[in-house]
């Protein structure tokens, strides 16, 4: 449920580091808590984002949550397929349900993120 090649933050995003690029999505725990995702609001390519700030929103039938990035950077790609099929976030949160790719301004900002094991322990306390 929590792939070991990813890093996680306490806002329930995951990050896959590919060189100086970070791919960001939400965890299995987050999608399960939200329920069926019906709307994903993402920024535009070229926007810059800052660590700890909301970059977008995700809505289920019942509730809305903000999406956070754990690092500063420039958005080089957004998953525009989610506009038409937001349920992909539920079905494949670590694959086709990814949300944005950012070019990292400072990769060391990711050092404080949780490993899969640490994140699993964190959510088991929250649940």
């Amino acid at each position, binding site marked *: 449920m929590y792939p070991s090649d990813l890093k996680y933050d306490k806002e329930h995003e995951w990050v896959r580091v590919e060189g100086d690029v970070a791919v960001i999505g939400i965890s299995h725990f987050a999608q399960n808590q939200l*329920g*069926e995702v019906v*709307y994903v609001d993402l920024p535009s390519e070229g926007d810059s984002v800052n660590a700890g700030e909301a970059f977008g929103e995700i*809505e*289920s*039938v*019942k509730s*809305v949550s903000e999406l956070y990035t754990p690092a500063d950077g420039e958005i080089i790609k957004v998953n525009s397929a989610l506009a038409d099929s937001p349920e992909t976030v539920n079905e494949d949160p670590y694959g086709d349900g990814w949300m944005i790719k950012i070019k990292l301004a400072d990769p060391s900002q990711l050092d404080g993120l949780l490993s899969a094991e640490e994140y699993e322990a964190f959510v088991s306390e929250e649940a």
Partner: protein
Amino acid sequence: MSELLARTPLYEEHLALGARMVPFAGHEMPVQYTGIREEHEAVRSSAGIFDVSHMTEFRVFGFGAFDYLQGLLTNDLVRIAEVGAAQYTLMCDEDGGIIDDLIAYHTGDLEYLVVANAANRTTDLDWLRAHCPEDVTLTDQIELEHHEGCGIVELVDESDRTGLIAVQGPRALGIIADLAGPGFRAPRRFHIAEARLGGTSVLIARTGYTGEDGVEIVCHVSHAVGIWRALLSFPEVTPCGLGARDTLRLEMGYHLYGSDMDRGVDPISAGLGWVVPQKGAPFVGSDAIARIRSGGPASRLCGIVVEGGIPRAGYPVLHGGEEVGKVASGTFSPTLRTGIATAYLPVALAEPRTALEVVIRRKTASARVERPPFVKSTSLS
């Protein structure tokens, strides 16, 4: 906090089904089992069951029952003179402010069953007690044993001993017929009848809050689990939580007390003039409501369809850049796959197709007035 929450007789069943429980109107209730959308679609296409045992039930009995209720409820009880008939109705204060919305069932000779919102149980009972005429004796459940039998009305709060299970969807009636066995005749729409289900006596009401055909089963709390399990044994039945109940009712434009109306709103502004007959008998609030009706309300509850975002309660509604109201109820419509909402708008803007915008956090989404029901075609239409 949690120890103050009441549990319905089906609480353990919900846990066993893996429901996500939330506090609602003083009760721990299932908001969803597998998912709101799936549950919603099950009701629109097959059948869903809902535990609504948290709701309030009063029984009003006696030679004075008709006059007593006729003087407090907005709809005309003469319309349900036939035993077995039921009607949607309101209870209002002297200014026409809505205290609660109710269904009154004429369950027997000199007897009515009134189903009210769970959150209004105390308010309603206090109001009913405070507004009984001099010659009426009210008797509640606790006092019943000692009752001398001198009053002409008995008011009994049946909530704690009554289970209520809604079975809704195009296949609901078939399931009930199967469970009840040969000889069962379903009551007509907005009627109620006694029946035997799995060896126990129940009332079956042909009412609901989803826009689909179906029934609500009124039973003793001790029989609720047996009936619930019998219903779940049908493969076409899906257990449904409050989440789907809300999306289903809003697709039909059915009002939710506390969101779409409250004490600060009159029935005319709320679009419920149809449950306040113009030539009916006088009741508490009738003069005030008649004045509002003849003068015309300043604002009116309207249906709104929103593109490109999901409206939620409290979001501002704009017209020509100016705020003209706030979302009362709002959600994503699983059937239409768009945002739907209600809002009180100035009457000049209440016409269908009026262009609006809804402020959804940092941006505005385009919207238009539409007359509910939002979903036009169901097993009831």
